[in-house]
């Protein structure tokens, strides 16, 4: 391994006409990594909280996700039960350990709730997003026991809870939050940016939903 590493780095340096130990180059790289300058941020996402939420809802629908707006977390179990009924699905969901979904009135519904990752047998799963990106209607989900990544991809129906307070304008807003939570330069194993349900255009360029991931993405936006 180390032989090719040395060969490749030497070849790059030969082509660039550098030695690799130039202080000015090192300083430029360190500075860029340290400052992580933002580039061009679209105007469309520079809005107040209400504007961001409205844009998020608009972009979610544009990405063919369905949306329900809820007044408080207490409404979450009922909204899930309603969604499953509307789609003729069994009243059964899989979810992770996320404490934001604990202590909700699950018992007031007939939902059967099991916890853990998916092995491929779950029709419906519920996750909690860490952030919404209004600019494109994107949901941000991080791996871990709270929201196992398999829940985002194996079930046919993916239900995602998003707090309206967590809706950011632009994609760049995400990175400082991740750095605060995990430390600069560190990341969870997987960060999923999800924009709508799975699709493919590989047959005659016709977009069809439900390629390998969820056929439907339903977002519960909690405003209280």
């Amino acid at each position, binding site marked *: 391994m180390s032989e090719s590493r040395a060969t*490749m780095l030497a070849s*790059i340096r030969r082509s660039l006409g550098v030695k690799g130990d130039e202080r000015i180059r090192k300083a430029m790289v360190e500075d860029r990594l340290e400052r992580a300058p933002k*580039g061009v941020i679209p105007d469309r996402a520079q809005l107040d909280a209400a504007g961001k939420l409205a844009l998020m809802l608009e972009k979610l629908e544009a*990405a063919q996700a369905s949306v329900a707006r809820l007044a408080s977390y207490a409404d979450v179990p009922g909204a899930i039960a309603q969604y499953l009924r509307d789609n003729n699905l069994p009243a059964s969901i899989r979810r992770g350990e996320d404490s934001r979904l604990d202590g909700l009135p699950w018992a007031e519904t007939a939902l059967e709730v099991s916890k853990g990752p998916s092995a491929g047998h779950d029709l419906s799963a519920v996750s909690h997003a860490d952030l919404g990106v209004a600019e494109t209607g994107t949901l941000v989900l991080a791996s871990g026991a709270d929201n196992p990544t398999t829940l985002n991809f194996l079930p046919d129906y993916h239900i995602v809870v998003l707090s309206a307070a967590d809706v950011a304008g632009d994609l760049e807003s995400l990175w400082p939050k*991740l750095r605060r939570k995990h430390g600069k*330069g560190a990341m969870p194993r*997987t960060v999923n940016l999800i*924009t709508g349900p799975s699709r493919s255009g590989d047959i005659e360029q016709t977009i069809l939903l439900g390629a390998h991931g969820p056929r439907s993405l339903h977002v519960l936006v909690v405003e209280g």
Partner: protein
Amino acid sequence: MSAHSTAHDFKANASRAIADTQLTGNLKAVRQNFIDKRAKAVKGLPEFEALRESGKEIKDHTLAHLDLYLEYYAQKVEESGGHVHFAADAEEARKIALDICRKVGAKTVTKGKSMITEEVGLNAYLEANGVTPVETDLGEYIIQLRGETPSHIIAPAVHLNKHQIEGDFRRVHTHLDPARDLNEKVSLLTEARGVLRDRFLVADVGITGANFLVAETGTSIIVTNEGNGDLTQILPKVHIVMTSIEKMVPTLEDASQILRLLARSATGQEMSVYTTLSTGPRRMGDLDGPEEYHVILLDNGRSAMLGGEFQDMLRCIRCAACMNHCPVYHQIGGHAYGWIYPGPMGSVLSPSLIGVDEAGHLPNASTFCGRCEAVCPMKIPLPKMMRHWREREFERNLNPALQRWGLGFWAFFAKRPRLYALANRLAIKAMALIGRKKGSFKGLPGLGAWTKYRDFAVPEGETFQAKWKKARAGR
């Protein structure tokens, strides 16, 4: 050795493609879909031009410091518990991948869409060594069933229609009811989903490519719509990322800038459905995800492109906008180019990677209309670089005698402006006189190959230079 190439046969390949009416019919989808969707997405983002400049600046900076970013990136991957393998060429990359598969006793490998694994010919190599690769991107799966290579870098099966795909599914999926109805496109999709779901769940290793490598965090990023790249990497015990060195960007902010350009330029989406950031193996307390994470970093001729006239090509983010807007690609499709990278980006990149002797014809597959450069999100001067290759081809005496003779003939006149203008005027007058009634020529002496597939319009009786003079005088 990289993947097999027939680029040296480009002329014959292109002739065959143009004569294939099924292919040219199927290719209409490229013109009809990609161009409109991109135009709409670009129009919807007023900052698009500013972002192109930003993307170019990011890549130029990164390439100028690539050695340092690679070192930093490799260190971050190791810190997060992953492994980085440097592969100087295709053979080394294949061997590293096979070694990792063997260490865990892998029988089947699922694969996300990756042009780098196509470049190194990974599938054939794994198969020859007892490991079964399963392509999981729908388009890649279809062409794997047919034993073909992709004809487009983001829509590998764009050269096929649904009837051809139905034929392949019936031929291969023999465990399913022969009387099933596959007339609807969605039933083809559903069938592939079912077949591949089983393969995802039993795979021992998952191999994906990467759209970006982020030095700051040691992260690899893939961008997909189907979710196959995600099932490929989160279900097996081992995730291998096979990618190339120029995918590097410094920070997450930098990746964000280019992400805004990528989906809009490729499919006309504002954001692809799944943008996935992967860093190391699963963490303590994680309940799913791979136990091992390996990155294989391929060079294969790229480091030699730095610092020279083809460095700009290393900014390419593989969005395919150049081929989607290329009149030559529209006519012949991707396979005619003979190697895995078709269209304008391939015409520039292939000679760099597999040599001008093999791929020297490709830079001639351009009318220099300039649309590729105009739509390139990374502002790569593709026509200029094709010209560089043509010059090299000429210098090395690689083009045929007739072409060299013709260029010499033209140069004789071009160096004598008065004679040139006179000869032009006479030729145009003569053609206008002869072809006045018909409006176009179906054939011209010495231009049979050209007029076989198109008519030559009759000149309007005046040269461009004469018109230009008049227009200037009239101002």
